[in-house]
């Protein structure tokens, strides 16, 4: 075969594979993603769906009851109603009242039940203005 044509075919095949792969990537990312919502939005939304909740732990609301951690989470800006949360699994070091967290889970009987080991607490590390 004429080498120029051969190259062209090769290019088309490579591009086709790339397009197919990126289509798969795009498709799965939309179906695999969990919606991110603030506590007040979750309170307003229909129960049953899984959300990634991000908010701020209400100070003084943290307690432990037979192995599960219970606390309330409010919107990051502090406004709105707070959402009661129950969670089992590993708790990152920085977790405590007043910290921002991200947790995946769903609302069951008015309580946001976190999936085990999905609790992420933000490092209060760098480049931030301090809490309070």
């Amino acid at each position, binding site marked *: 075969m004429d080498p120029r044509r051969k*190259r062209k075919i090769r290019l088309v095949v*490579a591009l086709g594979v*790339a397009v197919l*792969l*990126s289509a798969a*990537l*795009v498709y*799965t*990312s*939309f179906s*695999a*993603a*969990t*919606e*991110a*919502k603030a506590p007040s939005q979750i309170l307003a939304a229909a129960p049953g769906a899984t959300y*990634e909740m*991000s908010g701020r732990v209400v100070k003084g609301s943290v307690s*432990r009851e037979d*192995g599960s951690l219970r606390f309330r989470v409010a919107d990051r800006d502090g406004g709105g109603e707070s959402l009661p949360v129950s969670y089992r*699994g*590993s*708790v*990152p*070091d*920085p977790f*405590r*009242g007043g910290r*921002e967290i*991200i947790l*995946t889970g769903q609302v069951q009987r008015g309580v946001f039940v976190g999936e085990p*080991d*999905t609790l*992420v*607490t*933000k*490092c*209060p*590390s*760098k*480049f*931030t*203005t*301090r809490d309070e």
Partner: protein
Amino acid sequence: MSSLGSAALALAFLTAIFAAAAALIGRGGDRRWVDVSRRAVYALCALLTLCVVLIEIAFATDDFSFAIVQQHSSIETPSFYKLAAMWSSQEGSLLLWAWVLSIAASAALYATRNKLRELVPYATAVMMGVAATFTGLMLFAGGVDPFATLSSPPPDGVGLNPLLQHPSMMIHPPMLYSGYVAFTIPFAFAIGALIARKLDAEWIRATRRFALIAWTFLGLGLLLGARWSYTELGWGGYWAWDPVENAALMPWLMGTAFLHSIMVQEKRGMLKVWNACLIVGTFSLALLGTFLVRSGVLQSIHAFGDSTVGPYILGLIAVVMIGSAALIVSRLDDLRSQKRIDSLASREAVFLVNNLLLVGMTAVVFWGTFFPLISELFTGERASLAAPWFDRYTTPLAIGLVLFTGIGPLLAWRRVSWAKAKRIFRGPAIFAAAVGVVLAVATNPLDTPWAFALFVFASFALAGLAQEFWQGAAARRSLSGGSMPAALIGVISRNRRRYGGYIVHVGVAVLLIGIAASSSFQTKRDVTLRPGESAVVDGRRIAYERPTVSVDDEAFAFGAVLNVERDGKQFAVLRPTRRYFRPTGVQARTIGSFFDGEATSEVGLKAGLGSDLWTAVQPGISGVQRRVRAADRGFRACVGGAPGVPPQCRAVSRLMRAAAADPRLRPIALAQIGALQAATAERLARSYLDDDAPATFRVIVDPLVTWMWIGGLIALAGALIAIWPARRARRAPVADSEAEARKEAKYREIRDAELDHAAGKLSDEDFALLDAELRREAVEILDSQNGHGNETREKVPQG
């Protein structure tokens, strides 16, 4: 002192602008202006060094009139962390960025002071443009001036977050920054080469080492971050696909692709457009990493707040990307390759495949990282992707990569005949198949197909690399004699770049084995035990012997002594603890505040070559906390002097009454009460020992995870070998080195081909063809250097 610093910073900004302008004036070939601009870059480096030294002095001497010191350090902060606290601040990290850039730019311009005359002025202008942007940010963006002062400095600072007080956390940020920053150098020279239309491999040769240094720093930064996460964060993992981790991974991946494909341009003059795009992409991703941690656009573990500098960095990224794209398009004609890939069975073809895999991986990570923004754009809802999504795509790509890590080094440049390929691949393939059979018998490969594939391919790669080392040493020995180990050292030290690279490949293969094993075969259990109880995790009996409490200046530590037995034999004694840091900087108001501070895990770790036993504890201190609350109530009653005060707090209420009467006594009274509270808190903390309270332990058995760190260190060693300048280069005269460099490069190619032939990688016919071609090219270079008909023609070296 702060005014001196501000002046130095302002001067640095002007110097950067001056250096860029002088370089552009001298671009037509006016050496004086170019020399002036180079010296201005050195001056910039000196000025920024002064700024850094001033800040460090302020930290070391607890000068709390500096806002940066007050907010990130305190008198109690250990000295080592005082010196490292600079870059835990926004403004300090910007200063670090600019400072490292000025050092790298000075080094690059010093190294090229007699080379690349046409393109150095443009490269200088680009580097100084970036430097001016960063120094300008500190001066004008507002709120990020490192020399901002406090009009009434408080007696003590806020202190450094205890979570960050970990040695690797202190080295990690400067490593990442150095990595990000060093990519500026190859980027700037690429832009210079494009503008000046000097598009051969000269700019690559001049900046290759900087790209390699950037890559090494970035890799080391990633490794240290992972190590910190593993030992300090108490969740037992080392990678979470967090946006900030991804931000550092992306330029590293694309930088890896760049380091490979520039070799193709050096050797074969191909892939010029691709290389230009890769370095622009890498640098943009490095800037993006700098931006992401400061913008707050993405939700991340790292609560990097919104700040004023984000939009400016975004603007710089836009300028870099649009400008570079326009430039590359306008130079497309000059960028066309003179050559084509001869055969798919050649090293350059494998490099191309590896490039596609690496860029594909970067694209996956990019898409996943920015998916919250993408989904908000299309659906109006923010949604994010979790680790499993990342794993699904990066795992097969990583497996492909490890395979090519093995194939690439085995193939010669240009072409490899089928018969030859069969001979080269036979050994490694047999070894990999044997490993596969053993694994298939020992484990069930269908349960963990990806890990199985990775182990097999990694064994192939390791066997192939071992064969490379063996044959290289054998070839060297046949040429120069001596013992086999001496020949091995000889062949490595004479071909540092090649064998350093191979050592990096070994390290990466080992590292991937560690990751695959520890993520696929990990056992993780959370158990709640009372003292005296025990649990069995993966064949290890873990007995909670007794609780521990220790008190030091910084924190209360509640821990546990775990006695681990394996197969009935004593295996290890682990002491996981959890430290509750005292509030710093502010006076404690309640006993409870001693337990409200930052808490960190000290992991109880028994590392081993076979597997790690990792434990962390969540002490059951609710009893302690109950007593703390009661004590606080008691204190309030005492201080308030309520009726019915118990006798033991009469002293306190008397003190408070005296303080109320005489304000001069107030600080003394508060100090007394503070001390009393501290003593009470300590006593209550110790009461934990008598509680017999259940503690929750996270126990992880992580097979082969140690090999991840070992692999990382091997890769680091390989990178250092590749970076280290060869003795010849250090001795070489610098004058007129452009032609000299081209000649050297061609000689190196000839030696490479000879080594490949001696090592059995090239067949005799292929070698004869290649050698003749290379020698003809070398003669052409010599001719152009000496002029035609020169009698003193140099002889092309033999052997």
